[in-house]
């Protein structure tokens, strides 16, 4: 099986070359996206098939001669292979239609398969060298994709910030692996697993790995690049970056912390829990303030990454205390949520792409009424919005329910930090979930409902069949995963077993398909039954009333308390919808401030309201850093205007100093 996967990677790389050659021909699009679709489906099947099998290894004579390229396919890798295959297949299918709107296909087609190949390789890698190589391949390919529309406003900055953060993340991971390898330099993961780092070394590795993987995943305070870079790419790539690449980063974190380091320490769990909680709430708050649809979705990705890390933190906390059943529950919940997030975030980015190609705008304030113009897209968007808002019976609720159960599992942990972090994280998670619902009511309500706010929205046309098919498949998967969470939990079980040597009870054994983390008398949830109840009672109510009471309908003008205003501008806009929440939370977190400029009676100038928002993380962390770098650059600027003689003198001096150092060393 592993050779098949490796062949897929090779085929993806070949496809990248083919894409470069055929980019300007129409066949290029079909070739690249069709090929990626097939290969991703193969990867998906391979991943599913390898979930429950034994570990497979293969060493290829590539890369550094004394290391080679170690590949390994275990349950964890297989699980994430499923994610990549699923997300990649969906994005490719969507792009078969969506790709027609690309202005410069030569900027997308070569990099798209390379990006997929990079992600697959990260998951397969079994030595530090290959892992970092694949990590950088993934980063660079996605950077190239972010820069596709390089002339658009803000893209250049997005690309620059992204490249900077990606380099930084690669660097910290390099250092982490260096420390894990130790003095002997055992760069393959197998030897790292043998040597358990302890004390200061372990702490350092943990911090570096958290920074490296966390910055790729979008953990606060390393998230600033994410809302810039993800939306700048074409929509199907945004879906891959948000839905899949952040999960690959989560994979990196899990691989290092749970597998290579061999078990966490309690303060590490506190750190992860704190970061996860803050990330979840800050991400969704930022999403609430956004009016660019794709940026909003990117911010919500930050939130969901936070939720996944809360799950991971809980797993660490329980593992530290030897409570394996609890750790297994939390880990299952985190992985399940990662899977769900791939589904609904890809779906939502697809709908954003459809809206973008139908109306030409991503600005929420210029949309509206799309439910009439694009009915299928509206339906799938509604499913995505409800899933990400964690509403039963969809999948987002099932995984968040599991995380809540994990929080409630064991209040008597001995470490004081965990004692406080657990309830606080529970509160933050609940707050994030509620705010996410508000955020997606806003997205769907402003974007798809109401009256169109611009001519472009009023004349939108439904998108092509490929795009609709991709969206419909993902919407169906969201529903299925919500109705049968037990199947997903059982599928995840081998991964959890590999990491923690324990698993949740088998769920599919229950005749009613109820999921129960511990026992049915403690807590249980049956998505199928709840959905059936809702559908049945909706039908009974509707049919009964239509049959027995009345079915007459009369269309009439809008009522609106008797004062309807024909202009769509009188509707609530995205900014006004979020205003109460901006006042409550934004005033504290973002120093949100509104100034109203009201002209005196008789004046003819319009009244204006201006809102200002500050990103606390940027102001506190990045702005000083930028200042420092600018200062250093200014100071070094002198060096740029020297004579050749002086430059030679520098080289000479450096050589002498090095030689001196060498002598003194001995």
């Amino acid at each position: 099986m592993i050779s098949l996967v490796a062949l897929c990677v090779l085929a993806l790389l070949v496809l990248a070359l083919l894409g470069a050659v055929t980019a300007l021909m129409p066949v290029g699009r079909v070739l690249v996206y069709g090929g990626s679709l097939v290969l991703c489906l193969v990867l998906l099947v391979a991943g599913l098939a390898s979930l429950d099998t034994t570990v497979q290894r293969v060493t290829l004579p590539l890369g550094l001669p004394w290391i080679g390229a170690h590949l390994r396919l275990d349950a964890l890798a297989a699980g994430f292979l499923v994610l990549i295959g699923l997300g990649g297949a969906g994005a490719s299918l969507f792009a078969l239609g969506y790709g027609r709107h690309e202005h410069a296909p030569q900027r997308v087609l070569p990099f798209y398969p390379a990006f997929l190949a990079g992600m697959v390789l990260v998951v397969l890698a079994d030595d530090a060298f290959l892992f970092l190589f694949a990590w950088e391949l993934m980063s660079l390919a996605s950077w190239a994709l972010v820069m596709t529309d390089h002339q658009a406003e803000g893209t250049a900055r997005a690309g620059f910030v992204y490249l900077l953060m990606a380099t930084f993340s690669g660097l910290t991971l390099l250092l982490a692996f260096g420390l894990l390898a130790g003095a002997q330099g055992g760069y393959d993961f197998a030897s790292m697993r043998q040597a358990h780092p302890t004390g200061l070394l372990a702490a350092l590795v943990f911090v570096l790995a958290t920074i490296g993987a966390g910055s790729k995943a979008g953990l606060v305070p390393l998230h600033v690049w994410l809302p810039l870079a993800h939306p700048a790419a074409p929509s199907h790539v945004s879906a891959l970056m948000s839905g899949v690449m952040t999960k690959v980063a989560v994979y990196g974190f899990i691989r290092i912390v749970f597998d290579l380091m061999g078990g966490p320490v309690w303060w590490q769990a506190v750190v992860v829990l704190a970061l996860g909680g803050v990330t979840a709430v800050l991400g969704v708050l930022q999403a609430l303030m956004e009016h660019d649809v794709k940026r909003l979705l990117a911010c919500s990705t930050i939130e969901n990454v936070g939720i996944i890390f809360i799950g991971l933190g809980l797993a660490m906390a329980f593992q530290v205390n030897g409570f394996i059943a609890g750790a297994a529950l939390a880990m299952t919940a985190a992985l399940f949520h990662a899977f769900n997030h791939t589904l609904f975030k890809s779906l939502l980015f697809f709908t954003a792409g459809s809206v973008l190609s139908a109306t030409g705008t991503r600005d929420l304030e210029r949309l509206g009424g799309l439910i009439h113009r694009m009915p299928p897209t509206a339906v799938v968007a509604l499913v995505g919005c409800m899933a990400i808002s964690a509403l039963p019976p969809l999948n987002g609720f099932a995984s968040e329910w599991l995380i809540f159960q994990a929080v409630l599992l064991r209040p008597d942990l001995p470490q004081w930090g965990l004692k406080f972090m657990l309830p606080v994280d529970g509160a933050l998670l609940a707050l994030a979930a509620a705010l996410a619902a508000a955020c997606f009511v806003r997205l769907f309500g402003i974007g798809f409902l109401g009256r169109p706010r611009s001519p472009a929205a009023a004349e939108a046309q439904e998108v092509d069949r490929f795009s609709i098919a991709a969206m419909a498949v993902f919407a169906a998967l969201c529903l299925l995963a919500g109705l049968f969470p037990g199947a997903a939990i059982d599928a995840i079980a081998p991964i959890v077993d590999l990491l923690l040597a324990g698993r949740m009870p088998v769920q599919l054994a229950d005749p009613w398909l109820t999921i129960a983390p511990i026992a049915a008398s403690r807590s249980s949830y049956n998505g199928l039954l709840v959905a059936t109840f809702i559908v049945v009672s909706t039908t009974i109510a509707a049919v009964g009333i239509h049959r027995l009471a009345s079915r007459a309908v009369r269309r009439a003008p809008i009522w609106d308390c008797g004062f309807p205003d024909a202009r769509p501008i009188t509707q609530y806009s995205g900014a006004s919808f979020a205003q109460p929440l901006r006042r409550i939370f934004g005033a504290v977190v973002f120093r949100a401030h509104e100034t109203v400029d009201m002209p005196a009676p008789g004046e003819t100038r319009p009244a204006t309201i201006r809102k200002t928002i500050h990103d606390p993380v940027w102001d506190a962390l990045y702005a000083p850093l930028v200042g420092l770098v600018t200062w250093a650059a200014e100071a070094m600027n002198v060096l740029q205007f020297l004579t050749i003689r002086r430059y030679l003198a520098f080289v000479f001096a450096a050589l002498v100093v090095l030689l001196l150092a060498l002598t003194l060393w001995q």
Partner: protein
Amino acid sequence: MAVTEATLAEAMAALGSLLVQFLQMALVLALSPLLTGVVRKVKARLQRRQGASVIQPYRDLRRLMGKEVVLADNASWLFRVAPYFIFASTWVAATLVPTFATGLLFSWSGDLIVITALVGSARFVQALAGMDIGTSFGGLGASREVMIASLAEPAMMMIVFCVALIAGCTQLSTIAGFMLSEAVGLRVSLALALVALIIVAVAENSRIPVDNPATHLELTMVHEAMVLEYSGRHLAMIELASSVKLLLYVSLIGCIFVPVGLVHGSAPRAAYAIGIVAWLAKLAVGGTLLAVLETSVAKMRVFRVPNFLGAALMLGLLGVLLLFVSRGM
């Protein structure tokens, strides 16, 4: 022969529990307008008005259902489906709460978190329906509703945490059983949770001081602004859903904090009578207290509401914190 008899008996038992389950669902639906009527009546009497009869809500529903629906020209399918969905998910949530008996046939299909989330689903769809026509009132109502929900839902979750940590589970039937047992005692956390739950219930049901169910004054509307465009049978479904929701919260408070009289699902059928009488008494007391509360306080400005609900959230969090830190609490 013996085998078939045993299977027959089993089937009869299953049928019996199914019937009890349906009885509960029907009772919830049938009694909820009555509760609304009682609240209105008591309120009217407290305000020295005669007030409408307690069965007026039934008459209203019947009248509304028989009328034709006046739909705005640009209403979408979502607007037409929403009332039924809101009603259905609220009703399902309400039937998951043990009213007169615990451990009914389907009680395990959802726990307290599921109930909270189902109410959240209804609200999600309701807010969307409010925005469908594209009027300023609809947007205003939806915007304020999600603001209230963004604090009420976490507060509710904190209450769930509090109760679940004390009882060791989130399954309402088991919680009620635990609350009936000797092991509970008086606990600060429970008291905090009760206060918080009352605040959340007031907010969730759009009651004074958070919202006013009887108002049509633009500046103060929240719930009413969202349903402004609804008429006929759609409005009837929404009104019925509101009544069911009120019943849900009163039953929930009764089930967790005053589980007196709850019978277990496996008890003899005659015992159900006691359960039903106790439940009715709880509903009457709850409705009266709500009316007294609504009469004695004034409605808040909208931007005072976050503080009010924030207090509920804080109380819930304090309760949970106490539980985590000291097991004695």
